[in-house]
């Protein structure tokens, strides 16, 4: 039910100092610090990258593909996320950035922003057809979709069943631009750790058409070095509507659905989903939820500050002049998801409900005896999470420094009590 356990977000144990900073920021309480290092529970991790952002020792990282992954393919197509355009200052136009990618070993580029326009059309058409007033949830952000699977499974049936712009772009390349060929490699240039995971284990699709995912931060330096020298030619085809998907509000604006709200940053996304699960937001038709601050520009694999990147991209949208005609029209390709996105049982205490109930009861008792400071010294994100760990047998009560001190004091008192008053001579033996 939980599928494969590959995750892009991983730990470098040699750098981890067991400082417990990361455990508080994980939205699914997936991290524990035990035996001197952090451990990430695969079944709970949603690849949001929060831990990568906050780790003071750079011990959290996202596994992605190196540029050498291009080598086996004759045709090597880069699919740059529109976020890439905001990584460089105004001297470098989108055309120049796209031409720069061709200097790094790619033989062709296809803007994900171009596919985003088609995805916007498909999603808007789907929303118009359903007749259900919503709220419907965007399925574009892989961390948000996974958050729903783990923490809000009752909302999964609200996902708009249209594939992401990355997947749509890869399919357009393989099925329209290079049909019938098996020597075409398609590589997403990614701000996002979650995209690495879904390129291997896609959500709502049986297979991904993406052959590799390369981090923006890994192409940044070679691309930056190439940019001043490239001969610029017109390659940019996406309109402002597609480019705007790089930041929050971009998708909602592109879909042009009335009564849409957009929310970014995993904590705020959770707030909106909690309200939605409580039956609020009946008057909302569409929710664009993105896990990273300010949207994809805030992705953990980017280089530039998200707010600077967003400002740059917005100014590109205002100046948008596209020399080339769009190649594809709405409805060009079937962009619907192929299967339901199902729940992941990551948070249940036990697979069997009776057993889970016993553990929950025990958790409540243990939690009552804890100080409730959520200090993190035990390696769990909160006293309650620690109580669950103890009930499940994953931790012992004396991992809590306060309980340890309490036990030591008791032990000391017992020792003193055992020594007791000296027996008088002649009494006892």
């Amino acid at each position, binding site marked *: 039910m939980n599928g494969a356990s590959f995750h892009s977000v991983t730990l470098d144990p040699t750098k981890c100092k067991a400082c417990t900073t990361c455990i508080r920021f994980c939205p699914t309480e997936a991290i524990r610090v035990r035996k001197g290092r952090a451990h990430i529970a695969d079944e709970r991790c949603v690849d949001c990258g929060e831990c990568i952002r906050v780790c003071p020792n750079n011990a959290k990282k996202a596994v992605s593909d190196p540029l050498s992954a291009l080598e086996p393919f004759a045709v090597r197509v880069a699919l740059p996320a529109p976020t890439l355009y905001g990584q460089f200052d105004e001297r470098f136009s989108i055309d120049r950035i796209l031409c720069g990618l061709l200097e790094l070993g790619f033989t062709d580029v296809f803007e994900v922003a171009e596919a985003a326009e088609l995805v916007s059309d498909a999603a808007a058409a789907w929303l118009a057809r359903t007749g259900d007033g919503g709220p419907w949830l965007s399925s574009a952000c892989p961390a948000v979709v996974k958050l729903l699977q783990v*923490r*809000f*499974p*009752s*909302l*999964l*049936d609200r996902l708009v069943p249209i594939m992401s712009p990355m997947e749509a772009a890869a399919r357009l390349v393989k099925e329209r631009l290079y049909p019938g060929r098996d020597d075409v490699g398609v590589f997403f240039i990614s701000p996002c750790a979650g995209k690495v995971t879904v390129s291997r284990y896609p959500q709502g699709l049986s297979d991904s058409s993406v052959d590799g995912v390369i981090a923006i931060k890994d192409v940044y330096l070679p691309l930056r070095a190439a940019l001043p020298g490239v001969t610029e030619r017109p390659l940019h085809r996406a309109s402002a509507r597609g480019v705007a998907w790089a930041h929050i509000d971009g998708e909602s604006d592109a879909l042009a659905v009335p009564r849409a709200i957009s929310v970014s940053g995993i904590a705020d996304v959770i707030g909106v989903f*909690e309200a939605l*699960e*409580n*039956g*609020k937001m009946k*008057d909302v038709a569409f929710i664009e939820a993105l896990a990273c601050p300010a949207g994809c520009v805030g992705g953990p694999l980017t280089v530039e500050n998200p707010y600077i990147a967003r400002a740059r991209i917005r100014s590109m949208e205002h100046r948008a002049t596209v020399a080339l005609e769009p190649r594809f029209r709405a409805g060009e390709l079937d962009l619907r998801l192929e299967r*339901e*996105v*199902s*729940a992941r*049982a990551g*948070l*249940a*205490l*036990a*697979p069997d*409900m*009776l057993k*889970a*109930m016993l*553990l*929950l*009861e025990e*958790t*409540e008792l243990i939690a009552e005896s804890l100080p409730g400071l959520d200090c993190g010294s035990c390696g769990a994100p909160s006293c309650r999470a620690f109580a*669950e760990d103890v009930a499940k047998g994953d931790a012992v009560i004396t991992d809590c420094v306060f309980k340890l001190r309490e036990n030591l004091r008791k032990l000391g008192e017992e020792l003193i009590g055992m020594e007791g008053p000296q027996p008088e001579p002649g009494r006892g033996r």
Partner: protein
Amino acid sequence: MKLRYEVSGEDMSLAGKASGEVKRALGRLGVNPAAIKRTAVCMYEAEMNMVIHGGGGVAEAELSPDRVVVTMRDSGPGIPDLELAMQEGYSTAPEWIREMGFGAGMGLPNMKRNSDELRIDSAPGKGTTVTIMVKFDSSEGTGA
């Protein structure tokens, strides 16, 4: 097992905490998502009523393997005409509550729709006790 929470009648920003805790507990038990959502909707509505009309009170959730029974008890003014209160659109909520998006008169009907059993014991001056029962019917599916 029983969970118990005090619901403050003083602080609107804390309204929803108790239902959030029960939602979390049901998730830990592995209850099917559709039943969790139904419980959350009912309890959240009842908790809001308790804060807005009842001046706070006590929320209890009795968990069994096949159902949850939530009891919300306040010592507020009580409901003078229960039949009227159950009608869709009937509301006594003050304007400021309506401005927050509550008080449309859908609370009790919505709770009735989402629960498997709803009982309201109330009399003017005696407070209100709302009892909500939700069954964990596995045939409801995963909600996915």
